[in-house]
């Protein structure tokens, strides 16, 4: 392939050569023409000069003759010749006075037999005879190189020559030529061997001559210097060459640039395109054949036109066997095709024939890259599942020219997916079970602890109980963390959305940690210059508090002296959004840069030794990090070892409406007189005795006297028998689980259908969904607290109100 540079230079060469040749030809031909023209001109010029001078001289000489003739034809002269009286001096006297055109000279008259009538001028006998015989009308002779001339003219009487008049005079060159005043030519005349030259003081260097006869054998010579003309030619040629060269240069540049633009550039472009095309095709070919997907393209009718290597490998047919010869029917199950045809026909309310159309209908009419799954039959009759992505191939006019099918062998993927689903299911089940298993007893323990707390206790007992509570709560925290992590991992952590005041939430959370801070003599501060009224947001309050709680907990944990400060700042309101920064700063032990790196990873703690000193699961910050992310925030950490740590979170909340919050009401609800305020018939459905017991107690504390059912079946019976307002339904129960029971109750279509609240250790979204789906109105995770029960009742009551 020619490179850009070589084409250009070749073109340049071409232009240069062409125009060079043109220049040469033009110049040569014009030079020749010019030379001819100039020679011609020269010839004409010289001839003109010569002719003019010759004519002038001729005129002068013939005038002399003419004047002489006038005298010769005078009657007295004729008479004197006829009478031929030598003694008669009158004729001689006559001519003594005469000058011819100013020239003075000597005259003679000769008789027909050469006798002088008068005068004694010598003469040429032959010329005389010729004049006598009328062969010469007159004669002019150049006698000497000084300019002596002799003129002879006949004396005629009655048309007969009776005598000859001779006139001899001296004519100086200047009188005959007059000056030429030229620098490059002069004149001379000659007759036979006699020569008369111009008298010029400066000697002219002449190297050329032209001649013209004047009269009577007298010839005029123009002597000139040829170099005058040669110089002229050279000057002219130089001028012309310059002009032509300039013109050619301009033209060639013009042609060059035009040529570059109109020919070379498009050509180069073309080459480039060809290269690109080649590369592209090559790439395509390579892609086609290196790709693991099967690429099968067909024409409009379904005949295979492209069949890549993967297809060959997977299906077992060779490209040569298939291309232009077969359609995809070769590897499809006809029954499947018929079925799909029916489905598509039904779905799109149109008749789609079982055939090629089935594969491409959607691609053609509905959407490009239509996806469908098929069973593919190899040559060896084995099969595999394939995902087909079909696209219609259209030309520039949007006409379909064929179809492209990309097929992926999804057999393994399918399998893997199924395995994954199953494994996930198993994991979820396990987690659910485990959490249920763990939480249920925990529920029991903590419930009992709570109940014990409300009984009279001595100090020691209170102390031990406190330890039990804190341990239990700790354990519960751990379980909750694990559950959260697994939810987050499984992507099943669901956020709630409520309107609340950020400042208040922060204050409430700080309140919870005040005790812990006091224990370590740490100052726990809250700094905010933002008006609390400005900080109404719509978010998940629980999770937000969890974040703050975690950070505060860590801060307190890792600070031995000084303070822990919570700051909110950088309030930025933008439309619906409320941006704010939350900072938790401590004067604790700080973190090293290495620690910071892995801070938010699961199971990391700054130091293994820390775990030993400070305890902790190592899951807290990981959960915090994930939660921050889920709440549309960004968390970063700044720390200096030995000085302290700051956790900075930039939140982007949705603005909240103070009128939508309800929490405030709930918090301050008293326990006493609760039941009378919220009069409900409650049914408790719980299979676990301990949990049962706790729940009953809790409800009793609130002033309720619930009925009990141990399983779903019993619950349904009881519902049939009595009217209940509220049912707390455990989900995992023998004989009939909570979901089924709820469904059954719903099926009863009671006039006053009770509100069923799920109560379970399972805290997965699935469970939640299933519950709500089944007809449950709310969802409580165990261990339930009295507070939770209270809140739920209030919420439900409010809803129904």
């Amino acid at each position, binding site marked *: 392939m020619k490179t850009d540079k070589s084409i250009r230079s070749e073109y340049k060469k071409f232009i240069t050569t062409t125009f060079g040749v043109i220049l040469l030809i033009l110049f040569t031909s014009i030079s020749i023409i010019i030379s001819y023209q100039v020679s011609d001109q020269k010839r004409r010029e010289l001839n003109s000069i010569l002719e003019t001078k010759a004519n002038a001289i001729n005129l002068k000489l013939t005038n002399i003759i003419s004047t002489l003739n006038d005298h010769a034809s005078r*009657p007295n002269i004729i008479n004197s010749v006829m009478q031929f009286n030598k003694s008669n001096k009158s004729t001689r006297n006559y001519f003594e006075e005469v000058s011819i055109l100013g020239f003075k000279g000597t005259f003679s008259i000769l008789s027909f037999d050469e006798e002088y009538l008068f005068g004694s001028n010598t003469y040429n006998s032959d010329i005389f005879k010729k004049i006598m015989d009328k062969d010469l009308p007159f004669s002019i002779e150049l006698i000497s190189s000084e300019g002596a001339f002799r003129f002879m003219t006949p004396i005629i009487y009655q048309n007969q020559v009776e005598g000859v008049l001779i006139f001899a005079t001296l004519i100086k060159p200047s009188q005959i030529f007059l000056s030429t005043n030229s620098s490059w030519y002069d004149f001379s005349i000659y007759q036979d061997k006699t020569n008369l030259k111009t008298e010029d003081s400066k000697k002219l260097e002449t190297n050329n001559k032209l001649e013209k006869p004047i009269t009577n054998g007298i010839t005029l010579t123009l002597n000139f210097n040829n170099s005058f003309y040669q110089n002229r030619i050279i000057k002219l040629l130089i001028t012309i060459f310059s002009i032509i060269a300039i013109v050619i240069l301009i033209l060639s540049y013009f042609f060059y640039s035009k040529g570059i633009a109109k020919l070379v550039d498009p050509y180069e472009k073309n080459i480039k395109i060809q290269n690109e095309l080649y590369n592209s095709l090559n790439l395509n070919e390579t892609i086609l054949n290196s790709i693991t997907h099967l690429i099968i393209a067909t024409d409009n009718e379904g005949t295979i036109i492209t069949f890549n290597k993967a297809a060959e490998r997977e299906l077992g047919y060779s490209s040569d066997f298939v291309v232009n010869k077969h359609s995809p029917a070769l590897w499809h199950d006809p029954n499947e095709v018929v079925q799909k045809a029916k489905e598509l026909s039904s779905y799109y309310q149109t008749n789609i024939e079982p055939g090629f159309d089935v594969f491409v209908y959607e691609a053609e009419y509905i959407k490009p890259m239509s996806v469908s799954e098929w069973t593919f039959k190899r040559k060896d009759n084995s099969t595999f599942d394939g995902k087909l992505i079909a696209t219609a191939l259209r030309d520039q006019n949007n006409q379909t020219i064929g179809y492209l099918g990309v097929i992926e062998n999804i057999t393994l993927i399918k399998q893997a997916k199924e395995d994954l689903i199953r494994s996930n299911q198993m994991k979820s089940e396990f987690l659910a079970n485990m959490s249920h298993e763990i939480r249920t007893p925990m529920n029991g323990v903590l419930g009992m602890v709570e109940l014990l707390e409300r009984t009279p206790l001595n100090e020691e007992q209170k102390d031990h109980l406190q330890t039990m509570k804190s341990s239990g709560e700790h354990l519960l925290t751990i379980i909750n963390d694990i559950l959260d992590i697994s939810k987050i991992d499984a992507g099943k952590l669901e956020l709630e959305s409520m309107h609340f005041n950020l400042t208040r939430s922060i204050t409430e959370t700080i309140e919870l940690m005040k005790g812990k801070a006091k224990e370590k003599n740490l100052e726990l501060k809250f700094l905010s210059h933002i008006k609390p009224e400005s900080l109404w947001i719509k978010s998940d309050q629980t999770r937000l508090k969890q974040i703050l709680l975690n950070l505060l907990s860590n801060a307190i944990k890792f600070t031995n002296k000084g303070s822990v400060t919570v700051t909110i700042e950088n309030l930025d309101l933008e439309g619906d959004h409320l941006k704010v920064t939350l900072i938790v700063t401590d004067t604790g032990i700080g973190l090293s840069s290495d620690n910071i790196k892995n801070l938010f990873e699961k199971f990391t703690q700054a130091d293994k030794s820390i775990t030993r000193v400070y305890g902790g699961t190592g899951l807290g910050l990981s959960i915090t990090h994930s939660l921050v992310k889920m709440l549309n925030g960004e968390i970063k950490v700044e720390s200096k070892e030995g000085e302290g740590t700051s956790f900075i979170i930039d939140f982007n909340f949705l603005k909240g409406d103070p009128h939508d919050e309800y929490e405030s009401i709930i918090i301050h609800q008293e326990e006493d007189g609760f039941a009378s305020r919220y009069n409900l018939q409650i049914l408790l459905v719980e299979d676990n005795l301990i949990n049962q017991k706790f729940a009953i107690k809790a409800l009793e504390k609130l002033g309720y006297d619930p009925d009990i059912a141990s399983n779903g079946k019993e619950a349904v019976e009881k519902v049939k028998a009595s009217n209940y307002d509220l049912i707390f339904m455990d989900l995992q129960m023998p004989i009939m689980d909570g979901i089924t029971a709820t469904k059954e109750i719903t099926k009863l279509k009671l006039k006053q259908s009770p509100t069923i609240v799920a109560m379970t250790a399972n805290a997965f979204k699935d469970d939640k969904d299933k519950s709500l789906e089944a007809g449950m109105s709310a969802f409580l995770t165990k261990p339930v607290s009295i507070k939770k029960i209270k809140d739920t009742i209030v919420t439900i009551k409010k809803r129904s109100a």
Partner: protein
Amino acid sequence: MKIFFIIICSLSLHTLAKDFHIYLDADLSNNVESGESIRNGMQMAIDHYFKNKKENEFTVTIKSLDHRGNTRRSLKNFKLALDDPKMIAVFGGLHSPPLITNKGFINDNQIPTLVTWAAGGPITRTTKKKNWIFRLSVDDSQAGRLISQTAVNEGCQKPHLVLENTPWGKSNENNMRRSLQDLNIKNYEISLFDWAVSKSSASDIANKIKTVKSSCIFFVGNAKDASVIFKSLGESNISIPIYSHWGITSSDSIEMANLIKENNLNVKLIQTNFSFIQKNLNQFQKDILESILKRHSLSSPSKIQPMTGWVHGFDLMTILLNTIEQLEHDKEIKILRSDLRNKLENLNKPIKGLVKEYRRPFSGDNSKNAHEALNINDYVMRSYKSDGSLH
């Protein structure tokens, strides 16, 4: 044998008969009519003379030479004639200047010259011992007198002499002056013109005539120059009488007659006293006339033009032949010529001519008119008729 003998005899007879060449030196170019008329006259005379002769003692051949009016050519011609051993005599023609100029040569070289026309006075007069030139024509020394007399008789008191600038013209001038003097005319003008007179010269003359108010013109010139001058006179409306010498008859007479008529001119010119047109011709004259008319297929006598040449040529040749007849022919030509000259001066027998019967036409007594065959009594002044004839 007899025949042979006769032939030999006739041949010898022929050789016995002397053959003479008679040259005619005339202007056969520019005034060709005059020259030819002279020659015709000469030939007529020869024919007539030999017609009646049984035996020819001698024969004559005319040799014509053209001098074209050029004096020098005439000289050349004379030289030519002189070189001819058979030349017995040379006839002269119209122009006087050649004869006047070459007179010396002619006389020095003893060439018997017979002048039929040229009227110049000096021609026949020489200071030399022997005069070889004989004339049968008008003599200017007497012509001038006639012209003058006629003019004065007809009332011209202030003549204008318009003369050619040649010896002839000059001789006439002299003669006219003398005549006018004798006639007591003192008031006269003279204008000379050159041969081939130009129109401008001619009009100058005409103007001069007008200016001086001449009452008549004496013209001496040949026909060519006359036509130019006459035309000028006509253009200048000069209608005074012109008394002309006979030079104007040198060419076509009809042309001249017409010219004169066209220009309203009144021209009289000298002629010798014989014309074929005149009524009272004698027998001899009639015979000759008839011969001419017959010989030259002419319809009438008036066609014999110019008559002067015919008549004088005839008469002078007749005289010559009759003179030769009387000579002894066995002599060397030079002697013969001398004998001829002598004889011419001593012709006792009368010779019949057209003009008159010649009795002793020439003499050798060195008198003024010794060599003049005609005299003033033989001259008349005539005018042209439209047919070119002179009356």
